[in-house]
């Protein structure tokens, strides 16, 4: 059991999100950095999709009310168990009464706190992710507050601690770069924009505005101009879809995206880069890189293979 001592209401319990409920109007939700979520779970020997605490604002502090192993992923800021600095992407053992503080990273937006067996909250409609719009799932259907107590599903499970993995950033992205390249596939309406606008979409840097959250990232740049105003029929969308409202400033749908929408779609961020986008904080800039379906598919397969490889390495570490 842990007790939250310092947080904002934007901290929430997330797993890999809900599937099978789109026809109820229920979107996916789930971790903004699904790569970190899975890696943190593998570190603890959890199922890859076990629920964790997603932390978007820092410092974040919890107190352990009983002895419990834990891992922190997604973040390279200072992580302190009482006064002891822990490496990032690391499994450690806390004793009852100890305090864990997670501080902000210079480069990444979100950290995940993992507990053995996952965070023990009820499964609602097939997932433990907080559905903020529907006010269900996660911890009582809301963000976390000071004083909330969370249980680990398997608090007493014995495991090897003081082990870690190399950051996946080394493999997949340079989070320190000023302008972050993000790969996208063109979507339905990209040809409906003026030639200038189409060129601008790829060439200019887009700033992630402060009005960005788990629902979507609102971007700012020279606006995109459609050759004529389009009123689309409402249709299903997925996280990653880049919609262009009539003001010409794109919005990238993120984890809490609605499952459908009607603004024209210029492109979709490839699934293998969604974790990266989830880690880019507001105020930073991104640039879109066009790729084709085959490249998007290969990037997805490469990420799956990487997760399997890390899983194997961690299992070997644990036996050593």
């Amino acid at each position: 059991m842990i007790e939250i001592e310092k947080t904002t209401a934007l901290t929430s319990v997330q797993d890999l999100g809900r599937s099978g409920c789109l026809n109820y109007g229920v979107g996916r939700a789930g971790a903004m950095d699904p790569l970190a979520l899975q890696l943190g779970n593998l570190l603890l020997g959890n199922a890859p999709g076990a629920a964790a605490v997603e932390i978007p604002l820092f410092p974040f502090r919890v107190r352990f009310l009983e002895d419990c192993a834990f891992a922190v992923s997604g973040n390279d800021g200072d992580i302190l168990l009482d006064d002891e600095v822990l490496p990032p992407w690391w499994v450690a053992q806390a004793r009852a009464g100890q305090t864990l503080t997670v501080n902000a990273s210079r480069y990444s937006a979100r950290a995940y706190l993992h507990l053995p067996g996952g965070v023990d909250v009820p499964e609602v409609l097939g997932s433990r992710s907080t559905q903020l719009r529907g006010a269900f799932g996660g911890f009582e259907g809301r963000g976390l507050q000071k004083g909330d107590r969370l249980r680990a599903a398997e608090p007493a499970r014995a495991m090897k601690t003081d082990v870690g993995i190399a950051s996946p950033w080394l493999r997949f992205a340079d989070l320190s770069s000023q302008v972050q390249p993000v790969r996208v596939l063109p979507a339905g309406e990209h040809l409906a924009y003026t030639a200038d606008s189409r060129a601008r979409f790829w060439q200019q840097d887009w700033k992630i505005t402060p009005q960005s959250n788990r629902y979507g990232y609102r971007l700012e740049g020279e606006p995109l101009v459609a050759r004529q105003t389009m009123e689309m029929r409402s249709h299903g969308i997925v996280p990653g879809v880049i919609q262009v409202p009539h003001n010409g400033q794109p919005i990238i749908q993120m984890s809490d995206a609605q499952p459908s929408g009607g603004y024209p779609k210029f492109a979709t961020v490839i699934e293998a880069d969604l974790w990266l986008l989830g880690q880019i904080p507001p105020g930073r800039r991104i640039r879109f890189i066009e790729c084709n379906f085959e490249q998007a598919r290969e990037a997805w397969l490469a990420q799956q293979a990487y997760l399997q490889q890390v899983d194997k390495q961690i299992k070997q570490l644990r036996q050593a």
Partner: protein
Amino acid sequence: MMSIESLTHPVISQLGSRAMLFEAPGALGLANQQRIWALSAQVVNWPLVAEAVPGMNNLMLTFHQPPQELEALYEALHREWQRGEAQTLQGRVIELPVYYGGEYGPHMTDVADHTGLSVAEIVRRHAEPLYPIYALGSHPGYCYLGGMDPSIATPRRQTPVMSIPGGAVSIGGVQTGVSASAGPSGWNTIGHTEYVFFDAKASPPVMLRPGDSLQFRVEKVLS
């Protein structure tokens, strides 16, 4: 780029590597929607397909993993559509009392400006039809409705509003609907009603399904 109304063949486009969108050609209407329902019921059985999600005369598919053969999938979808099968769904009629305009309809003046109609006339035309539910989407329990009078169609807003309340009755393009909970929206809010559309603890969690219909009743028009 041709608009979907004037096309005679469906349009398929990618939504990243694990989803695609199938759009039925021709006028927006119930006949097309019945074919979408039938298509959805078929393709949801394909091993590759995770979810089949009808929208307004369109169908989104999500996949367990990125398809290996895109072209073959496109062809299979076209073939299935060409069979022309339609599914008829029968359901209940739910009457919802609506407070139109005033504080409940902050964008009513935008609809009046765009259509050139008086508020009274917009209300009359909005409350007139029986609206069949074509699909659910947007947010938990939200129903997409067919059958709005095109003369009160109003474009979605230049910039989406950060939050509109649950129960908001709104118009977006040629569509209308009722927000099932508070949240962001790009539609024009013209009124307010009360109804519980969603309960996560119920099974199924939604009160209304495609085939059911909504009838709006004018409770009051505020200025």
